[in-house]
């Protein structure tokens, strides 16, 4: 037995879970230090996915750079391209037409729906429940069809451009009708599923009290988004964003900070997203959807923060001669994943794997070159 004097814990063995593993949707490295199947310490390694996106974006013309940011992640693709366009629009002072703002919000909320449904399906698969996982994938197909209808592709639909929305994403009568029908269908099915899920004693006993992270720890480790709201702190950046001013929605919180709270968070956020989409469809203003009359200038580094399904996303870059300089992208998963390293300590190994997945990690979004300035 190894007696580790620094931590005063007893560690018998290390179990490495490598880049290729059934519970990992993306390649990452997790080393669990166990004593008799209880986890005493954990270490996560990101960096397996590093592809040098910021390096590629350096020097590209700004429209090309915007459409490249979409390829960073396949689940949060709309978030990246919206935020990247928003950065340039803030820097150059471009006025986005009202109709385009509403359409962008519809796409973002549809993305929130498909992302949360995918998280629930993956969480159920890590629990070992294949039937529920398949049911959730089936419900998710409706959202994918809607996204494919509006954007042209099921994944990476490229709706936002500099100054508005791409002409193909125009919403006419038929598309609005289909969106309303889709929303009714999803609301009915998700409510039925949630009732079934919460009333199942086997699943509830598996997820209650597992992977607890306190709100103090979550704030100290800079978590954001549903991961933070599940510990009881009511911080949602959407209340500060001017694009979301015309819409009414509630900020959902849960109290316990364990896996049950995280799962219920996402289940309860789905009706809120449906509410926003319904308001947007009902109040869609008339007008153009792209603003092409703006001047290119050189700008200093501009920042933009928006609320994406996982937390707070940050983009910043400067413009020089129409090209992107000094691009920095920081995704919410970077802090959330670090926090989960502490949440899995003290649990059985199977529960530790569940605690890592509970924060909805998107490793492929997260892999940037990081410079540590101060520890």
């Amino acid at each position, binding site marked *: 037995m190894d007696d580790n004097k620094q931590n005063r814990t007893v560690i018998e063995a290390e179990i490495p879970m490598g880049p*290729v593993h059934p519970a990992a949707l*993306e390649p990452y490295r997790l080393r669990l230090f166990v004593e008799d199947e209880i986890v005493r310490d954990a270490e996560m390694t990101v960096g397996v996915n590093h592809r*040098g996106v910021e390096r*590629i974006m350096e020097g590209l013309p700004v429209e090309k750079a915007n459409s490249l940011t979409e*390829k960073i*992640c396949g*689940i949060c693709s709309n978030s990246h391209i919206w935020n990247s366009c928003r950065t340039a629009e803030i820097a150059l002072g471009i006025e986005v037409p009202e109709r385009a703002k509403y359409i962008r919000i519809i796409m973002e909320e549809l993305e929130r729906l498909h992302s949360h449904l995918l998280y629930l399906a993956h969480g159920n698969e890590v629990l070992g429940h294949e039937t529920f996982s398949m049911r959730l994938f089936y419900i998710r197909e409706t959202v994918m069809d809607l996204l494919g209808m509006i954007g042209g592709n099921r994944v990476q639909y490229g709706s936002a451009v500099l100054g508005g929305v791409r002409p193909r994403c125009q919403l006419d009568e038929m598309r609005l009708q289909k969106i309303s029908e889709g929303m009714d269908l999803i609301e009915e099915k998700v409510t039925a599923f949630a009732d079934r899920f919460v009333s199942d004693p086997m699943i509830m006993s598996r997820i209650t009290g597992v992977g607890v992270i306190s709100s103090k720890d979550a704030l100290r480790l800079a978590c954001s988004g549903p991961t933070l709201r599940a510990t009881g702190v009511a911080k949602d950046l959407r209340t500060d964003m001017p694009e979301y001013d015309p819409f009414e929605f509630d900020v959902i919180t849960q109290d316990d900070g364990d896996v049950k709270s995280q799962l219920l968070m996402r289940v309860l956020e789905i009706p809120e997203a449906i509410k926003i989409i319904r308001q947007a469809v009902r109040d869609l203003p008339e007008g153009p959807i792209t603003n092409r009359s703006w001047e290119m200038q050189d700008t200093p580094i501009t920042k933009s923060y928006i609320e994406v399904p996982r937390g707070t996303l940050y983009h910043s870059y400067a413009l020089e001669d129409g090209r992107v300089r000094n691009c920095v992208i920081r995704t919410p998963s970077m802090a959330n994943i670090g926090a989960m390293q502490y949440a899995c300590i003290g649990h059985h190994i199977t529960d530790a794997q569940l605690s890592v997945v509970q924060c909805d990690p998107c490793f492929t979004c997260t892999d940037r070159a990081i410079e540590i300035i101060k520890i």
Partner: protein
Amino acid sequence: MSLKSYSRGRAVHVMLVYTGGCNGCDIEIVNCILSPKFDAEQYKVFLTWNPREADVLVVTGPVTKHNEQPLREIYNAIPEPKAVVAAGACALMGGVYKNCHGDIPSEEIAGPVDNIIPVDAKVPGCAVRPQDIVAGLVSALPLLLNAD
């Protein structure tokens, strides 16, 4: 049709390896196998996570530096006969990450899958459509059926 090729065509085990892509293709492939709408099991294609059990290896993503050795090890662990399907633009030619400017190759990725293991079937798309994945798998089958 001999018993060997008949049985090989009626039970195909597929293993997925994700090598650092954007996750779009991965979700579509999981959709193809786990979603009741596409359900690859009705085509006698079963999912497995163990290279010793697999016949077909489906690779997505441009192979990043840390994933090169694991991919090689997993490929070597699969017993003969085997086939490799590369799915998605990143696996076929490195996608948007291959070059960092113009024709200057990027140093972060070890190249498309072709540079590391031999590829038998190529499925294009960004992201691949689930219908195309099943078609790609089926097109790799004749190599398995007639191999000795």
